[in-house]
């Protein structure tokens, strides 16, 4: 579904991604782990189309298309969704309004009829239940005055409503208490399907106890230094990033 090849990305003069290679298949849950400043969030934003990042080399093929050639809105319409680490507050724009506008923009792109409020509302209410969210969320302005946990849950609500093919969760777990974490994880798990891929970007192993990944990749200093199965996450928990990084360097220096 997604193939990232030799991706180099700069912000200003600073190179952040230094040749990332990654394959994600439909049906897969892929965890990208790494220490602060390793480039995890950059990778997530580049996939969503943030223009402040400059791609200097490499390419990203999504469902056979050149993803980097698409505007952010076109990527969303093609089924890419980024759950933000820091969701943006938008005063004056209602949550329900945004959900419906986004939902219909994507439907329109797919040649489907737009839903009116009467048909849309029941659909949203069902998703709210899934995330144990109150209906009053819908009438509030997007993320305005939301607590950290509410913002994260709101991202997952959008995810649940928009049903993307490729979901990228950027540190959706950070700052969540265990109850909120479980709710968010169950919301994500409900979306697991053979047609959908989920990339979970996280600093901590904890989330992966609830969203069990099929593959784990360790990103350090703009490169993926280790890839493995679920057990790699546990090893990281045990040894820390520096331990894994040291081993990797050792492995590179003295090939066995």
């Amino acid at each position: 579904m997604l193939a990232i090849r030799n991706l180099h990305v700069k912000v200003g003069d600073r190179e952040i991604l230094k040749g990332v290679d990654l394959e994600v298949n439909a049906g897969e849950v892929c965890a990208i782990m790494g220490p602060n400043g390793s480039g995890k969030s950059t990778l997530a934003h580049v996939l969503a189309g943030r223009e402040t990042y400059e791609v200097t080399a490499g390419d990203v093929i999504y469902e056979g298309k050149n993803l980097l050639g698409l505007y952010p809105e076109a990527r969303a319409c093609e089924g890419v969704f980024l759950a933000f680490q820091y969701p943006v507050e938008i005063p004056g724009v209602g949550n329900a309004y945004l959900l419906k506008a986004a939902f219909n923009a994507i439907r329109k792109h797919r040649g489907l009829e737009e839903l009116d409020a009467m048909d849309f509302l029941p659909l949203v209410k069902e998703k709210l239940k899934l995330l144990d969210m109150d209906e009053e969320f819908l009438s509030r302005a997007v993320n305005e005055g939301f607590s950290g946990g509410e913002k994260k849950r709101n991202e997952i609500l959008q995810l649940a409503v928009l049903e993307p093919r490729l979901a990228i969760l950027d540190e959706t777990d950070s700052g969540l208490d265990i109850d909120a974490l479980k709710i968010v994880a169950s919301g994500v798990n409900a979306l697991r399907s053979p047609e959908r891929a989920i990339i979970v970007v996280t600093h901590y192993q904890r989330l992966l106890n609830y969203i069990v990944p099929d593959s784990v990749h360790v990103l350090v200093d703009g490169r993926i230094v280790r890839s493995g199965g679920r057990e790699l996450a546990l090893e990281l928990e045990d040894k820390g990033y520096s331990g894994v990084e040291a081993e990797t360097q050792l492995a590179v220096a003295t090939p066995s």
Partner: protein
Amino acid sequence: MSAVTHAQDSYLESFARFEEGAGGSGQEWLRSIRRSAMARFSELGFPTTHEEDWRFTNVAPIAETSFRLAEDGHVSPTVRELERFGFSDLAGIRLVFVNGRYEPGLSRLQPLPEGVKVGSLVHELTTDPGTLEQHLGRYADYQHDAFCALNTAFMQDGAFVHIPRGTVLSEPIYLLYVSAPTADPAITHPRNLIVAGEDSQATIVEDYVSLSGDVHFSNVVTEVVVGENSVVRHYRIERESAQAFHVSTLRVQQGRSSDVASHSLLLGGALVRNNVHPVLAGDGGDCLINGLFMGTGEQHLDNYMKVEHAGPHCNSRQFYNGILDGRSRGVFHGRIIVHKDAQKTNAKQTNRNLLLSDEAQIDTKPQLEIHADDVKCTHGATIGQIDEDAIFYLRSRGIAEASARIMLLSAFARESLGRMKNESIRKHLEGLVGQWLTSGKPLEETR
């Protein structure tokens, strides 16, 4: 400067001709006010940017244009021609003025509740001037304000509304001021007087439109006298042509426990000055001053607020939002004056601005003059650009960039529009703002 002096002389000449035939000229009190206002204008001349109140607005284009008093004989528009200006869903009274003169054929004076008087000022001046003598020219300051002096010298027609004690008008009174094409640049001096008796309630809408792109100048003064415990909602909509000059003064005299809201929407005009001057004269009055100004091209939109707290225990809240695009320039000058006896005043002022282009400009200036010691006054101003993080967030949800921009600007505009409580008026204004947003640069700017 000689062009300006010449222009002032021509106003004097024009006044001499006007005064003879002007409606109500037989009445001494009116003659005297007109004359003293004319004399005052001659002394004051047009303001310059050296004056603090006009620091950000240069009226030379007005001073240097030779205007003629709009006269009768223009071709009046038909009801159909006015339809495009909308507001057709307002069921109440509608007065239409074309080039400053009342047009009975385009107006509708029904349904008129018992005791309410609504009509043309000149008609009232010639038939029943009692109430007028008591109020006309008593509040608007023609001693210090040149435009007000000029209006007062040439005042003749406009709307007169008198709501008797205890009367509640459920429908807004809609006043439409149409500028029809003239051979030379025309000047009009609409003069409105609204008198709301004790315990009464009314909503007044002033709407200024142009039928063509001609240069013209609307120099407006509206005096509103609000009796004890009365509620008045006033709306001013400026949507004249991009060549129009517009200076208007809303002067509100508030009695005890009265409740007033002034709402402005400035979309049109080349050079616009919007003066809002409430005086909270009685105890416990409340005043909301709410506005939205949206400029593009070379427009200059100046909002000058002068909120005077003269009585104790009064509240005033000013909220003005500006959206400026192109090379347009906006001004918000918010004066709050708290007089010595106006203890327990609570006055608030907020001006928020969005600049959509590098060349758009805003000058915002709070000015607090507080002579009482037990008061609460706050003010704040912000100037910013559209939030690019929010744009990206919306785009990442599948919303096209142009729509995302319009969504954010609409939300910003709705802060102001949301304070307008009359639903049919608000909906109409939301429509006007929506048109501005979709036809203006926010859309062009995008791919």
